[in-house]
């Protein structure tokens, strides 16, 4: 899906001045927890988030995130925009909530990041340890 189609679906706007709207994203991830973004995404992912601090861009850089959409009409501070410019990561914005923005993109066929075995291990490990404590 191109960023242009993404923007149309979430009724969004480009924040960065030099966004190439013909860029493709293969899948998307919605998260406000950056560790989850680092753990549960693949390179080339579109990130939807409500956080606007520069660490979001750092996270995107490390995880190979293709573009970032800020949800709920949030506008990032100047240092976030500057860092994104430097790292050439396009910033977009939508007025929809994280849930609805994700839903709209998913319904239009933009895939998620798939199932993660590590996530399931974490889940069972934690459950086991909790039940053991009890």
């Amino acid at each position, binding site marked *: 899906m191109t960023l242009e189609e993404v923007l149309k679906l979430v009724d969004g706007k480009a924040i960065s001045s030099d966004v190439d709207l013909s860029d493709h994203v293969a899948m998307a991830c919605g998260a406000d927890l950056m*560790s989850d973004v680092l753990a549960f995404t693949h390179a080339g992912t579109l990130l939807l988030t409500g956080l606007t601090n*520069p660490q979001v861009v*750092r996270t995107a850089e490390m995880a190979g995130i293709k573009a970032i959409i800020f949800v709920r009409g949030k506008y990032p501070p100047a240092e976030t925009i500057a860092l994104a410019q430097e790292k050439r990561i396009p910033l977009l914005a939508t007025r929809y909530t994280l849930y609805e923005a994700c839903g709209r993109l998913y319904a239009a066929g933009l895939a998620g990041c798939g199932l993660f075995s590590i996530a399931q291990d974490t889940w069972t490990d934690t459950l086991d340890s909790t039940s053991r404590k009890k």
Partner: protein
Amino acid sequence: MAAAGSSLGSNEAPPGAIPVTKSQELVYELKIGDIMTRQPITVGPDCLMSELKEILRVKRISGVPVLEAGELVGIISLEDLIVALERGETGARVGDRMTRRVQTVYADESVIQAVNCFARHGYGRLPVVDRQGHLVGIVTQGDVVRGLLRQLDVQWQEEEIHRYRASHIFEDIESDQTGLVLRYKVVARDFVRGGEASSKLKRALERLGARPQLMRRVAVAAYEAETNLIIHTDTGGDLIAEIQPDRIRVVALDTGPGIADVQQALQPGYSTAPDWIRELGFGAGMGLTNIKACADEMRLESRLGVGTRLEAVFNLTLEEQRRPRDS
């Protein structure tokens, strides 16, 4: 002669004209002297228009500066010649038909001055003079294009050589065990600069020709480790990457406060991070889990009041040990 080159101002870019592309940048960096044609063909004022016609035809040029006793006194172009031909004045002297008020540029000015001149006045060529006003060359729009292309080519080659050197370091330098150690200082509580060390490490790996998938694993682990140093230490610490041909070791070292219960710290979701960290999207107790998932081996050693050492090892597969350009 009007020394108009200087009237265009300094070599600096005019306000608002921010160079955005490499060629636009070069237009400011390159000097006219770098791209001009040296020792241009000139004529004297007594040269006849019929003689000028032959010079332009044989040399395949469209205009020449006119010199008298070594001084630039005018310029004459193909257009002047056409007018003379129309009027049947091929016997006229160049000195009577030339343009006397010559727009010149200085050899030590930026190419942008010449570009602006071409754009503003529609000139086909500009005589280039030194600061004493002596003719040292001539510049055409063709010279500008050729000069820029040549410079782009040179810079591209330099970049390639640079890249080549970096990616061949392990083959070019012989030892029984070659390793590259990169050490980054991480400042405690400085979340604004958080991630800079990992970013530099990632860039270094890119330079060394690491595969994207490996680079991503190392970068994510390093970033989590760097974040831990920022959040949890008293005085920051060191993020050290030891790069060897067959493996990469990332170590995060600090001098305290240390972890009370290492086993507990390794539990997914266990965290001692304060709220302000959580508001930034971190501190959910997933950092060590993430590092473990990215790395092939992870070790965490810590003593209260002494410090913590986290080590993550990434073994390179045979595929990853080969540089991408070879495949």
